[in-house]
């Protein structure tokens, strides 16, 4: 035989459980548009029964916990893909800017090389004509300028990428700080056996943002997380975050340090990785190619020039100022060494009417004087490489964003708030609440009956 009070307690448990469940629904609805929010689901469990001989009676319902529904494997995949996406975004944006230097125009390097040789061909038809000679000098100046301009533009881009590196490191430090703090909040709750729900969501959001900036490896441990870069440099250890620093190196660019160790070359992913790759590998490689082209042109033209005779019958002096022996900076510093048109050594026999040396100079156009290729072939190779790098990176970027979109879709289907679902749940809990309330009313009436029963006999 049970008691009315026991039933009352049971019905009350129903009321509070449904109230609690409704709280979860309310929170879901309020956070329907919160980025990174994982929907909460109340876990209702039947309370332990009691045994009142010969009956086993239930004691109602307990709201055991409110769980956040999230798929950790999906979260991890999203985080990985964010790194790739961040890296590719940075690379594509930077390289698209780089390649504008190699668009055919009236003054790009390729056009100026051809102009220069055209003027030499004209010189070969009239070797002693001063205005034709001046044309050669002007074309040579324009050629040198196009090299200088391109090299400078690449250097400037490196500088602005460098600024971006410093800013990104700042953002990384901010995020690791946030994550460390959230780690504290999460472990406080989870150590007490509670659902750390929204703190975990916020922490995951911060980790996703961090992933788009730098490669991040997540190692979960007792109710807390450790974050490191892909090669193991610690970023967050429990409630402690480790800042990255930047330091100027010998090239005037910033290297990334962690606890005094230079980790610049080990950052391979995220926006920082992409920016560093363009700044430290792709742009320097391009600069080296330009330097090779400038050095090859200057040295080969000088070689022919100094083997011939100028308009005064003297042995030719350097046409271009000799490029640095190492080649580095040749493009930025390429310049014409002569200003007097009569100093161009067009003659091969010392007379003013001979064009033999001008012909030899023209022939450079079709000789493999630049690392085994003709100047135009070499330049067209540079154009191809730049375009190919951008095109490949763009294709990868598109693929990556499609993968990320799919992953986010999947995540939303697991963790996203469906207002329809919440409405249906709300109705459910509401009805159950109403039913429990009715039961309490009935029990109340029965109690009144009992009391009435006792008063009547008094």
């Amino acid at each position, binding site marked *: 035989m049970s008691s009315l009070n026991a039933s009352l307690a049971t019905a009350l448990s129903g009321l509070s459980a449904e109230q609690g469940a409704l709280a979860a629904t309310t929170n879901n609805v309020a956070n329907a548009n919160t980025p990174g929010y994982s929907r909460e689901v109340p876990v209702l469990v039947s309370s332990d029964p009691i045994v009142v001989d010969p009956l086993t009676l239930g004691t109602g319902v307990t709201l055991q916990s409110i769980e956040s529904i999230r798929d950790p494997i999906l979260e991890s995949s999203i985080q990985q893909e964010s790194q790739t996406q961040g890296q590719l975004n940075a690379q594509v944006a930077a390289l698209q800017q780089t390649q504008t230097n190699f668009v055919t125009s009236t003054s790009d390097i390729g056009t100026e090389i051809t102009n220069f040789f055209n003027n030499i061909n004209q010189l070969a038809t009239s070797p002693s004509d001063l205005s034709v000679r001046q044309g050669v000098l002007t074309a040579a100046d324009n050629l040198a300028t196009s090299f200088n301009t391109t090299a400078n533009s690449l250097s400037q881009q490196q500088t602005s990428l460098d600024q971006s590196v410093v800013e990104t490191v700042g953002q990384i430090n901010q995020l690791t700080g946030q994550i460390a703090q959230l780690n504290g909040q999460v472990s406080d709750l989870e150590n007490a056996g509670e659902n750390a729900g929204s703190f975990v969501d916020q922490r995951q959001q911060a980790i996703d943002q961090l992933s788009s900036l730098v490669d991040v490896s997540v190692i979960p441990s007792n109710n807390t997380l450790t974050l490191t870069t892909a090669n193991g440099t610690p970023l967050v250890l429990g409630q402690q975050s480790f800042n990255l620093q930047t330091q100027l190196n010998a090239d005037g660019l910033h290297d990334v340090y962690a606890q005094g160790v230079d980790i610049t070359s080990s950052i391979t992913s995220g926006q920082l990785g992409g920016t560093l790759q363009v700044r430290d590998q792709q742009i320097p490689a391009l600069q080296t190619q330009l330097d090779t082209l400038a050095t090859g042109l200057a040295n080969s033209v000088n070689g022919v020039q100094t083997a011939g005779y100028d308009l005064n019958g003297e042995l030719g002096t350097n046409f271009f100022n000799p490029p640095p022996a190492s080649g580095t900076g040749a493009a930025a510093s390429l310049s014409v060494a002569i200003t007097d048109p009569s100093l161009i050594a067009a003659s091969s026999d010392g*007379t003013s009417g001979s064009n033999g040396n001008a*012909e030899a100079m023209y022939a450079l156009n079709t000789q493999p004087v630049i690392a085994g290729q003709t100047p135009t072939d070499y330049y067209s190779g540079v154009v191809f490489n*730049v375009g190919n790098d*951008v095109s490949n990176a763009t294709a990868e970027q598109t693929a990556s*964003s499609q993968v990320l979109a799919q992953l986010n879709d999947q995540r939303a289907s697991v963790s996203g708030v469906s207002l329809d679902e919440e*409405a*249906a749940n709300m109705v459910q809990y509401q009805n159950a609440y109403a039913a429990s309330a009715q039961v309490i009313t009935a029990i109340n009436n029965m109690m009144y009956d009992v009391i009435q029963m006792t008063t009547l006999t008094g």
Partner: protein
Amino acid sequence: MRVNPNPLPDLLAALDQTQQQINTDLAQISSGQSVSVPSDDPAAAAELVQNAAQTSAADQFLRSIGSIQGELQNADSTLNSVTTALQTAISLGVEGATGTLNDSDRAAIATEVQGIQSQVLSLANLSYQGTYVFAGTATQTAPYVLDPTSPSGVTYVGNSNTNSVTLGNQFSLQTNLPGSELFSASGTDVFQALQDLITGLQSGDTTSISAAVGEVTSTANYLDTQRVFYGNAENQLNAQQTYLNSDTTQLAQQQNTLGAADLPAVISSLTTAETAHQATLEAVAGVTQDNLFSYLKQ
């Protein structure tokens, strides 16, 4: 099975894509180029660099050919004048060798031949655009100077070097004949011959006059054979011009194929993208704002 309850981000991403396609197509239509940056088509961009270089070089060859044609024509017509002058000298010589003339007649003829000698000297010292054409490569100085110590009356101070000019891939042309191969070649010296004729006429010796006439004739014949050089050069230049013109036409076609926007295809792509964009916009607008909450009666 639960599905993504919020399709809006996906729709917005799709809008982004169609807008991107629209922008790309519009850029192609307005520029007429399908390759405006290397990444549009790296292989084509590289080929276009080569194409532009070859086209520019071909245009330069045509300009150089024009310059040289002028020079060569000038030289050739000058040689024509020399030959004509020599023919006149020959007639005069033949006249002077007739037995019926007296000394003063011959002296008069000798003077005429001297006039021809001067004329030939100035023709041999032809200057074209500031340089001496028949001086070999020593073009700053007149190649033939009067020299009383020389038996022919002149000394050649030019050289025997020649110039060639590259006028096409693996095509170059010699552009000059030095005086030493025209007027004062060994065994056939125009000035010597004329001088001998003058000396003969002045001496009155018909034998030596006839011999001198023979000399002048053989130098005139030699000049004619040498002039073949100019005819040949002219023919080669004409042929090269024709070739270069067809080459530039081909290069222009290649440039079109590589880099010109295929307008019908681009317009079609633009239309498709705009339609898709419109449809997506309508979808976004139509994504139901309703959910179950709207229908619950409280």
